């Protein structure tokens, strides 16, 4: 279980202080798929970096499976938006997926089986000895997902992972994330600025306000568990939910506007 309580982050540059996160409290239960959505520039990435233990918060606590997060937690894997910069170009696909497992000191046979099952789970069999830059953007992001899956995390953080791929690839990758989540029984926290994506993917959607960020609203997505791009997106309930999220995000933006005006 991921528990974020009263999280605060202010950046200091010289005498100026910028408040990025004001007060964030939410929980993600084990095995849940939760989407975080917010207006652009709302500190989503700051939040994710705090959860991943890459950034020290200014206040509040984060705990993962009961353990306070003080550095990168061992049971957590992350998929970055910038797949091209997050995969190591000097390593083949196999080596990229295998490197974190070597760090975990797993025996070679176990590593090999994890790598091949992760690559086949994301539909990339046969690309083991290619370099990432020889693959398309969507395939590179699949490699990054395979690396996260092979790591066998209890929690998977995804930071706008599909923001840089084309729409069709994106739809495929969304379905891939849902399929992997259902199969592997991991907790997924998925950050996006795309409202449709958040409603399509999540069991719950947490809406963030503009910076300085607080939780604006939260909804449970009561769509059936088996979703597909065609029917789910045409569902009346889907439209209702996305309208609600959209209104909340607009309200969040207006809220920011009025604080600026006043």
């Amino acid at each position, binding site marked *: 279980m991921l528990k974020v309580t009263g999280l605060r982050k202010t950046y200091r540059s010289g005498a100026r202080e910028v408040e990025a996160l004001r007060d964030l409290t939410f929980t993600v239960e084990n095995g849940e798929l939760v989407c975080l959505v917010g207006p652009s520039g709302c500190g989503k990435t700051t939040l994710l970096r705090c959860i991943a233990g890459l950034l020290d918060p200014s206040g509040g606590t984060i705990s993962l499976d009961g353990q306070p997060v003080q550095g*990168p937690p061992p049971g957590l894997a992350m998929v970055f938006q910038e797949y091209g*910069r997050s995969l190591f170009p000097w390593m083949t696909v196999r080596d990229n997926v295998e490197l974190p497992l070597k760090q975990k000191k797993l025996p070679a046979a176990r590593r090999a089986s994890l790598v091949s099952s992760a690559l086949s789970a994301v539909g990339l069999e046969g690309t083991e000895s290619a370099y990432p830059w020889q693959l398309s953007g969507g395939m590179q992001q699949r490699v990054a997902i395979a690396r996260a899956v092979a790591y066998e995390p209890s929690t998977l953080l995804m930071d706008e992972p599909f923001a840089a791929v084309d729409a069709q690839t994106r739809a495929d990758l969304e379905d891939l994330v849902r399929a992997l989540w259902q199969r592997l029984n991991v907790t997924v926290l998925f950050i996006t600025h795309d409202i449709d994506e958040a409603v399509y993917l999540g069991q719950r959607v947490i809406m963030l306000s503009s910076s300085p960020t607080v939780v604006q609203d939260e909804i449970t997505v009561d769509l059936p568990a088996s979703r597909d791009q065609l029917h789910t997106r045409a569902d009346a309930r889907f439209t209702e939910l996305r309208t609600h999220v959209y209104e909340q995000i607009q309200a969040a933006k207006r809220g920011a506007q009025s604080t600026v005006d006043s």
Partner: protein
Amino acid sequence: MKRVAYVLGLPVVLFAAWFLLSSGSESFYAPPLRTILASFADTWTLDRLRADVLPSLLRLAAGYAVAGVLGVAIGITIGLNRRVRATVEPVLEFFRALPPPVLVPIIMLFAGIGDSMKIIVIALGCVWPILLNTVEGVRAVDSIQIDTARAYGISGPSRIRQVILPAASPQIAAGLRQALSIAIILMVISEMFASSNGLGFTIVQFQRSFAIPEMWSGIILLGLLGFTLSLLFRLAEGRALRWYHGLREAQRRS
């Protein structure tokens, strides 16, 4: 085939021009190329290669290797640590600005005139481009790559070996390439000061004893040596950085 013609074209033309223009030369100091080439075969026998060229090459290799190891190791330390960098960078700039040959007399005082002096001169002279390029390369490692390594628990020596070094390797290779030509220059210079063998020593000996065609043949040999070494370097670099050239190619296409 066409590439070979491009590579060899101009050298062949220059050599032919030298051969033809110098063929009627009466000058004692600039003998015809024909004479120089004839003396080349007589001068650079296997015995001489073993006695003079081999020691030079061994000292070059030793000095270059010491510079490589020190430059990369210190460069990584400085590049990873902002405080160390702020402290040592001005001093580094000063030492880099010193022309390395000027160190030869000083190093002779401490290290004598043996092999170790020459190795130290070569190492001290060519460590700077390696060191400074490594610092730059390490500083420029993509923050997302560092974050990825951290998020997956890749830390300490393993992060340096698996992430920082490879990420900085194109820049380190650029430093090594610059250092190679400096190393060859210093190899010759260190042998001109005080030596009993080596290529630089032999060429100066020929000049002092007015063996002019032999002196010229030594210079040609030195040129060939430098050319061969840089060719070998490029081959090795192309192999080690194949991923980098492929990545650049892929980025250009997209």
